[in-house]
Every structure is written in C-alpha cells, then in structure tokens.
C-alpha cells in the first residue's frame, strides 16, 4: 500500500501557545485511521494544517504526494472534509447548502446524494438554523461524503449523532474502506475508534505518543486478572512472579486483582496452589491504553476518565 497522508515533523504554534510539536505519521491508502486525544491535544490543529486552513511553522505534510500548502487546491479535489465545529449560513436550507457545495466541487451525483440523505434520515427542506446539532452534523457528513472523495478527513464526526445514525455512519465508513478509499477521523471516543479504525495515533499535549494498529496498541497495555480464592491468600505470593506489575487486594479480602504485563503462566501456576473460586481476565480496551498514556497527569486522567 502507498501512503496517502505523509506528515513529517509538523509543528504549529499560536504565538507563545502550543499547537502541535514535531508530529510525524503516515496514513496508508485504503485504511481507516483514527486520531485520538483529549480536548486541546492538537487533533483539530493537525487536521486544519492538512486542510491548508493553517500554515505550518515547520515540517511538511503531503496528501497523495502533493504538498498540502502549495498544492492545496489540487488536494481538495480529492478530499471530503467535516470540521469539528460546523458553521454555515443559517438562512440557507440543508438542500441549498448541499447544492452550493456540490457546485463548488464541480457537480455531484444527485442519486448518490439522495441516498445519503435517506440513509441519515435528514430533512433538507429546513433552514440550517432550525436544525438540531445532530441534524447539522448530518448535513456536514453528507457534504463530506457526497462527491465520493478519495480521502475523507473527519473531525469528531459522530458528535451529536444518535446511536442509530452512528451505526449508519459506521456502515458508511466501512463501505468507503471496502471501495479502497481512505478515512482519517479524529475522536476522543475510544470505543468508536476501536470499532471503526484499522490503525490509530494518540496525541497528547501536541505531541504524538503512539502510532500503530489497533490490535498492536492493545498488546502493549497491561492485562488485568481478577482471582477470587476460597480463603485469603497473601499478596506476596504473586508480587514477585514473572509478568506481574501490581497486586491489589479487594475489600472482600479473598479477591486479588493483578495487573499483568506479559504472560500469565506463572500466575496461573501459583494460583493453582490455592482453592480458586473464580478467575477472570479482562481484555484491554483503548480506554485503558488511553488512560495509561496519561498516568501521572492528574488533569489529563480526569479528562480521559470522562470518555465513554
């Protein structure tokens, strides 16, 4: 596969304030790439740099081999874009907005447009200011998808969508991927990214902290094994075992929660020395990984802990 997005040491500052610092990653053609981070981490700044709405202070970004700043017009022929905050003329109807952007893109397939409207259950006859936030988002999504772009750049696309429409959106993304087109989406909803994306990047305080396959990212995080014994067992029996990072006794006195990094063979063998009532192992979610990257940062942990 070839890279459709290449970001190399991209840096953007807002005066003395941080934007993003030395961000580098690649997105392969045909994949669904998730861009994760809490509010203010630099997701939108990165996206607006890719869209040539901001100019980088340093570094380069290329889309389909073209420089995002120098050849932005050519690039935008390939892109469908949904901004994080949608601001459109409140006096135009949804239909008028879609027609206007259709013209600016040189014309679109009306049949496909009507299919999208039907799929997202959107009423294009109402004025934009009369829409709820979810319906505004639908108009934004339709205008991003309607010209069948080679690359979709979506900034927090499901904000405000109800679960049914989120599912429909997931299906639309999968169809795009199946057609060999690319999706780059930002989110702070980790389960959404886990479900939709093939690869993921995590950004924190303007710097990229991890890029990898969703499965690969899962592997680096710690397992959690919870064992309930028939009688109380000393924690020391497990603390020094291979693969055990932490042992915690729960309030009932008979249950131990073990945080694992590595294989569980030694733990299983040690547990077998005692009468075991139950043993459960938790598959890590991206929420866990996300929280791990913010360990020791009180504010960030607090933000991340609100993530659904």
């Amino acid at each position: 596969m070839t890279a459709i997005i290449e970001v190399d040491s991209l840096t953007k500052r807002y005066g003395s304030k941080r934007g993003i610092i030395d961000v580098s990653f690649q997105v392969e053609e045909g994949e669904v790439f998730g861009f994760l981070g809490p509010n203010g981490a630099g997701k939108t700044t990165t996206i607006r740099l890719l869209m040539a709405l901001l100019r980088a202070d340093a570094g380069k970004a290329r889309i389909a081999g073209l420089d995002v700043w120098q050849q932005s017009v050519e690039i935008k022929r390939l892109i469908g874009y949904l901004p994080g905050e949608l601001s459109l003329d409140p006096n135009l109807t949804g239909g008028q907005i879609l027609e206007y952007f259709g013209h600016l893109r040189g014309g679109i397939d009306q049949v496909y447009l009507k299919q999208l409207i039907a799929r997202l259950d959107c009423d294009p006859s109402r004025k934009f200011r009369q829409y709820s936030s979810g319906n505004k988002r639908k108009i934004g999504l339709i205008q991003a998808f309607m010209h069948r772009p080679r690359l979709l750049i979506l900034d927090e696309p499901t904000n405000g969508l109800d679960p049914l429409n989120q599912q429909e959106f997931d299906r639309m993304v999968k169809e795009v991927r199946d057609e060999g087109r690319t999706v780059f989406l930002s989110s702070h909803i980790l389960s959404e990214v886990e479900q939709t994306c093939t690869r993921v990047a995590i950004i924190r305080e303007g710097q990229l902290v991890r890029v990898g396959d969703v499965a690969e990212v899962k592997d680096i995080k710690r397992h959690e094994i919870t064992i309930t014994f028939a009688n109380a067992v000393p924690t020391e029996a497990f603390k020094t075992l291979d693969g055990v990072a932490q042992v915690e006794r729960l309030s009932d006195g008979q249950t131990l929660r073990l945080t694992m990094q590595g294989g569980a063979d030694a733990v299983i063998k040690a547990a077998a020395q005692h009468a075991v009532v139950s043993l459960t192992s938790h598959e890590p979610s991206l929420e866990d990984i996300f929280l791990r990257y913010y360990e020791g940062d009180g504010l960030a942990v607090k933000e991340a802990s609100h993530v659904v």
Partner: protein
Amino acid sequence: MWFKSIYLKTLRDYRIAILGWGAGMGLLMYVVLVAVPSLVTTAAARAALVSLGGTFSWIAEPIALGTPGGYVTWKYGLTLLVIAIWPLMACSRLLRGEEERGSLDALLSLPRGRGRVALEKLAAVWTALLLMGLLIALLAFAGGKSASADFGLFDALLFGLNVALICGVFGSLALLLSQFTQERGTASGLTGGLLLVFIVLDMVHRVIPNTEWISRLSPVYYYNLSKPLVPASSYGVPSSSYGTNPGGLLVLLALSVLLSGAAVWLFARRDVGGTVALPRWLRLPERAVRPERALPVNAWSLRSVYTRSLGMIAVPTFWWTLVIAGFAGWMVVVVKQIEAQMTSLYASSPLLKEEITKVGGGDLATNATILSFLFVFLPLLLMAFAVTQANRWSADEEDGRLELVLSTPQPRLRVLLGRFAALTTATVIIGVLTLAATALASAATGLQLDGGNLAAATLSIIPLGLLVAAIGYLLSGWLRTAVDTGLLSFLLVIWFFISFIGPDLNWSDATLRLSAFYYYGTPLLHGLPLLNMLGVLAVSIVALALASVRFVRKDIGR
C-alpha cells in the same frame, strides 16, 4: 470586578461603544458650537441664517438660530439621532444575539430568573446610554463655554438626557421586535426602518399645516419638543415653548419602560431560541417543501462563490439603494426651493459662503452649487454601506463560515475576489440607480442640471465605496471583526470631520487631502475629477491586492 454580575459583564462589553459614540458625538457638538460665532458675525448674516432655517424647517424647528445653542440644536439635533443606531443594534443583540450564538442557554442555567437576566442586561444598556449622554453633555457644555453660549451645565446635561432617552426608546423597540424575529439582524433592520419612518413622521407637521397629530405618533416628535440648549428666558418667548419640555422627556421615558417591559415580559414566557407566536393573519406564508422535493434547488445564487455572495448582499443592497438614491432624488426636488435664501445667505455670511465654496464648488449662481454641497453626503452613505459589507466578510471568517468553502477546490484568492466582485456589483448598481433617481427627479422638477456632471456626481461615489471596502478587507487580514469595523467607522468619522468641519476651522489643503471625500470633489459643477478617481481606484486596487496576499497566506481562524 467586571465579571461579578451579568450587569457588569454587559457594561464591560459596551466600554468602547460608550467612549466611541459618546466622545464622537460630543466632539461633533463641541466643534460646531465653537465655530458658530464666526458664522454669524453680522446682523445680516444672522438674518440670512434665520431665513435659511425657515426654508429647512422640515429638518428641525429653527429656534434662535443666531445663537450657538439654537444653531446646533437645529442643525445637529437630527444628525445626533445617528447615535440611536448603537442602542438598536445593541438591544437586538442583547437577547436574540445570545440566542443565535447559543450562549443564552448557559446563562439561563444559572440560578437566576429570566426576567432578572434580561433586566440586568437592559440596565447595562441604560447605563451605557446615560454615560454617552453625559459625555455629549460635557463636551457640548465645553463647546458652549468657548462660544460664550447662554446655556449652562444643567441645560447641557438635560440635552444629554434627552439624547439618552430617545436612544432608549429605539433600543427598547429593537428589544421588543427581537422577541418576534429569529435573527437579530431582522430586528435591527426593522427598528432602523422604523427610525427612518418616525423621523419622516416628525417632519410632516413642519411641512404640512394642521398635521401635528400625525407627528405625535413619532417618538422623535417628543425628542424635538425639548431644546435644552435654547434656554427659554433668553429670547423673550413663552417659557413653555423652549428649553426642556418635561412632558416630552416623560413620554420618552414612559415609552421606553413600556416597550422594554413588554419585551422582558414576552422573553420570560417564550421558548429560548423560538419567537413569540404572531396571530395567524400577521404570519408570513410558509413555503412548505416536501423533503423529497427539496433537491435539486436549481437556484442561480448557488452556482459559485460570486453568485452566492450576490445572493447574500441582495437584500442590504436593496435597502441601501432606497436610502442613497432616495436621498439624492429628494435633494434634487428640494434644492430649487432654497436657491433664493441661499444666495442671500452667501451675501451676508462670508464664512458660510467660504464653506459652501470649498465643499460645494464655488459657483454660487446655480442650483447645482447647493446640490453639489448636499451631494457630498452620497459617498458618505455608500462608504457606510461598504463598512457593513466589509464587516460581514470579516465576521464570516471569524465565525468559521469560510472553513467549508475553503475545503472545496476553490482557491482562496477566488473566494476573496468573488466576494469583493459581488460587493463591487452592488456598489455599481447603487451608483447607477442613484443616477437614474436624480435624473428622473431633475426631469420631474425642471431643475436644469448638466447630464454629464450628474452622471459624474452619482457614479464617482463608486470608487470611494470600493476604497472603504478594500481597506476593510485589508484590515480583516489581521484584526478581529469588532476592531476592524470600529477602525473603519472611525476612519469614516475622521474623514467626515476633516472634510465637513475642516473648512470651518481653516485647515490647510494638505490636511483636507487626508480625507477621501476630498477626492470626490465637486463633480456636479466641474465634471468627473478623473485623476482623483483614478488615484482612489489605484489605492483601492493596492489595498485589495495586499488584502489578497494576506488572505492567501494567513491562518483561517475562529
């Protein structure tokens, strides 16, 4: 301190407006008051001025024109109503603007009743108006002192209070109307229209005898009842006729309380984000479009950035054309009536003669001279229109409305030039329709005007409008919308002072050249000032080019 209450926070938002409008209008009063003694140096000049006042009585009742207080009340009493633009915009924005932005939801989530929120905001508007009135009063008093006028500080304060009260009425009206409109712009527009209607209604009784009952329907009538800068005792007239009219002040106060009270009452009872339901017969017919038929729209205005920009500017262009072409046509109609009085005044007031000579063009023997003097207001109006449109461009970027347009394969330069081209089209339309209106008025009244010069006078306002727009676009490359619009408005005021007050103060030609109005010249008398206009166009093109360079390279920001 400023964030302790809704009242203080709102007042803080108005601090620049208080200084700008209060000091601006106050300075106007000051400068005019200082200049009055030199206008009426002889008894003959005073008599001629009184005669002229009689002819222009449709503007304002001419009382004691030979005195500084009388002259300034007659000449600028109406002009001062320009300040009512601020409260009508501020009050349209007060609740409806916050609803549009969605910020009112957060404010109403506080443990405060809706009525209290509205009243705190309204109190801030009233405080701002009273402070503006105070600034105007103090500067008018200072001007009066310099001119040895016979009104005192208390009279000046009453003058300021009268201004604050009439502004309060239009602010309250805007607040009430905004309860019925989805957008603040609609409420502002409607109130602005009513302001013009009320000004005209007030004029009716001064033009047509026995029609005072019609004028009583206008709040402006009650504003004009009070003439605090014309103290009653000085002129041997019945004391109830002049000076401050407490009844007039009370009517204005009562109107404000009534309109504001109704607005707050309705606000406390309607849906936030919704409007007060009108009776069925007052509602506009709704065009019900079935969702499946909503596309394709096939509207001409949606085909490109240029046509969309034209569609956006169409309604304001219509109203501004009505004002500018209407003003020009009306001036042609009335100018013939005042020729004799003006000739007499020229003969007896050397300073006024000099002023008219400088601004109007110097050929005192023709109607065109007076018309030329009055036509200087045409570029001012068109430039004000350009300010509003430059503001809209800047606001669209600030509000993020350009973001999706710029995500399409449209070069930034095309987006900017498309918008500017639409504005250019609108200014050309206004210019051409102004020419048509004046030509028709000229033919209808039999006023002899040179066709070529008339075309020059009406069409050469276009480059001046474009100049202001280009400067506005240029400034928006760096400045926030409020600052951009404020600076542009300030520039207009400065130019106005230089061109209209400068001759009174005998400023040098080099200083007068700093004003864009200078380059408009006197086309009605002397034809198109081709070099001047080319110069203005060249500066406009340079400003637009710089604006384009900046826009193409800048971060598109919120």
